[in-house]
């Protein structure tokens, strides 16, 4: 029993073996209450494979669902299963899970490379293996050129990518991302979306949460809608979407010249209305939000519009929820 100070040799064999037939994630009538406040109630859900978007407003219970799955919270009712195992007080299944918490605090005093390799070693990798693994995952999320800089000096999007990288070490079968796109600039958003799509193509099970429908729409079609701690809908986004096209959506754009932008935007057939709340603000109404979002960037780039912000309020989600709940909210 000599300590392996040289950090050589192979990691131990995993003692924990998952049940092959069990779904990756299973909730059976799960509820979680904090005192008198019910965060989620009576959720039953089983997921395996592919990218699934968990959609819901703030406070709908998305993070609670993930934290139950990661053994950070104890369910007050029902049972949670991760690879067929109860995750509460049992860290063994986390060997195959990568978790990106919503929490924005990170170890700012470390470089991304140190951060990722330190946490890689908790999977039982040696120092050298962990360094190589860190380089691999940081390359995967596109941070390899800045990986030796302190996380404290990173932008929001870089921080999110560092968090994703740390979750991808040891090549997990399940990746849980809690609001991975929140606060990111458009470029980081695109990079992260590509990473998630790539993970989906690699056959991993990915769960990601968001309160913005259009974000999820660009990544996956398989969605779960949570509302006030209850499961509202599971299934293909298109099926739900088609029914929603008669509800107009609103998009707000902050720009230097709203009028010229409006002229170009009107060339899109999906746009059916405009409003000018101020000279630098444009409100656009459309029935086809997804298509609009796909075509908008080209218009902006081709006509060299100066756009400060595109606010995509969760009006669209609000309207889905309104539609699904029949106005009972």
């Amino acid at each position, binding site marked *: *029993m000599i*300590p*392996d*100070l040289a*950090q*050589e*040799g*192979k*990691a*131990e*064999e995993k003692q924990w073996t998952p049940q092959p037939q069990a779904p990756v994630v299973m909730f059976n009538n799960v509820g979680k209450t904090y005192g008198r406040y019910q965060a989620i109630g009576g959720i039953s859900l089983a997921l395996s494979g592919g990218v699934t978007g968990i959609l819901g407003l703030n406070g709908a219970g998305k993070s609670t669902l993930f*934290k139950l799955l*990661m*053994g*950070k*919270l*104890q369910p007050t009712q029902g049972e949670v299963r991760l690879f067929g195992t109860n995750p509460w*007080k049992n*860290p*063994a*299944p*986390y*060997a195959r*899970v*990568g*978790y990106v*918490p919503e*929490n*924005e*605090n*990170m*170890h700012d*005093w*470390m470089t991304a490379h140190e951060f990722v390799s*330190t*946490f890689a*070693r*908790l*999977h*039982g*990798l*040696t*120092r050298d293996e*962990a360094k190589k693994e860190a380089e691999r995952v940081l390359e995967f999320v596109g941070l390899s050129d800045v990986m030796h800089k302190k996380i404290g000096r990173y932008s929001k999007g870089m921080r999110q990518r560092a968090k994703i990288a*740390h*979750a991808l070490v040891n090549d997990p079968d399940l990746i849980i991302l809690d609001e991975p796109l929140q606060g990111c600039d458009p470029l980081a958003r695109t990079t992260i979306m590509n990473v998630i799509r790539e993970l989906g193509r690699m056959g991993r099970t990915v769960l990601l949460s968001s309160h913005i429908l259009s974000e999820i729409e660009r990544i996956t079609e398989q969605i779960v809608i949570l509302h006030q701690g209850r499961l509202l809908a599971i299934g293909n986004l298109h099926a739900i979407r088609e029914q929603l096209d008669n509800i107009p959506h609103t998009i707000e754009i902050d720009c230097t010249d709203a009028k010229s932008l409006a002229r170009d935007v009107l060339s899109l057939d999906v746009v059916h209305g405009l409003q000018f709340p101020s000279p630098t603000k444009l409100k656009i109404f459309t029935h086809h939000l997804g298509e609009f979002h796909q075509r908008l960037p080209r218009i902006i780039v081709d006509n060299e519009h100066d756009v400060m912000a595109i606010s995509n309020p969760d009006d669209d989600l609000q309207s889905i929820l309104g539609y699904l709940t029949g106005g009972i909210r």
Partner: protein
Amino acid sequence: MEKKRGETIWNSLDRKATAIAEFTVRQYRTRLSTWVVLGVGFLAISVVLLFYIDAMNSDIEAVDNDGDSFDWDGDGYVNGQEFKYGTDVNDAFSHPGLLTPPVEPEPASMYINEDDYDWDYSDASTVKTGYDNDGDCTDSSLLPSQKDDNGDGVPCNIVLVYDATSGSYFVYADPYVDEDPDEERYGKEAQHRAFILGIGKLGFVFLLSIFIPLFLATGLIRDEMTSGTMQYMTAKPIARGEIFLYRMLGYLAIVWPYLLVVCTILALVSGFMGPGDQFFRFADLGVWFSILIAALLATLVYGMLFAFLGVLWKYGIILALPIAAWELGMALLSMSVPESSFLRMSIVGWSMSIIDSGAYLVWPDMAMFTEAGSWAGGTNEGSFFFIGGNELPGYNALEWAQSDLGLGMGPYATIVVSMIVLLAQATFFWFIGQLIFKSKEIV
């Protein structure tokens, strides 16, 4: 069959352990508060060290405890010389200068500190020792029965009787034996020992070992839970009990070398500055070693305790403060009543008994040495005409700093038992700490 490397659970544990421990050490290093806490601790210890250096460099005034350096009759011969030659100290026309052949007067300084205590240490409960250096007992015209006042059959000696209940010696001295001790010799030695024991007990085991863990260990788990960064670590395949333990290893990797450095500095300074003919007081290193062991274990136990309190409650430091107060009381109790059973319910009591045992092994004459300071050549017993004060200089400090072995066992047994108890305490706090951590929801 030889096992291939890297196949044991130990290896994997080790990877996780070193990863978290290294992480924790680096985290501490990047925090300013760590350096402030360690710096203030070092500063506090250094101030006491300065007092010690000052004490070692200042002379202690020699006191003529038996008053024989006076010349009462003004004949130019001091009383001590007149005693020796049997002339009358109150008659100016009776002095050794009138004897044939005449004797030259000797300077008064020869009769100050001229009969130092010279006691042999022995384990026996009754020790016959002492030597009448100036011959005012042996050579005097006292009757044989007067010369053997303590009735042990040997004239002009001292009988020391150990009293197990008080842990000190009773002194039964024949008259004029060891009656004018050297204040400088006694005082420096007593101050030196009192400094080592005092700084070991209150400086290391109390001040450093409580306040450093209070500031560094209370947030070991709690700070991460509050800031939310614990989310990352608890999402990895590692038990929370392990996280607790390995974070603790990182804390120890900061605190233990620090204690080693501070302890070494003090051991070197006091070893070179300390009294005695030798170049360096090597024997004292034994006491310093026991101080180091006590401080290492105390920082371990307090670290576990405070980290556990931090896990238990967001404001764990509030729970830690009454414990620190209780430990201060126990520290003082341990120095006065080392056998008190209250001490068994403390951490500091067990740590200090390690230091007392170390001191007992290095300075076996401690009880006798302390008693010599109290007896002060008999001046404190009222049997002598005396001019000096009561106790010898340094006696009070030594009496305060030293204490007996309170467990009723030998020194080695005391060290072993105390170490086992401290390790058991640390294990206990770790166990309940991780139990609570495990059932904590990390929001």
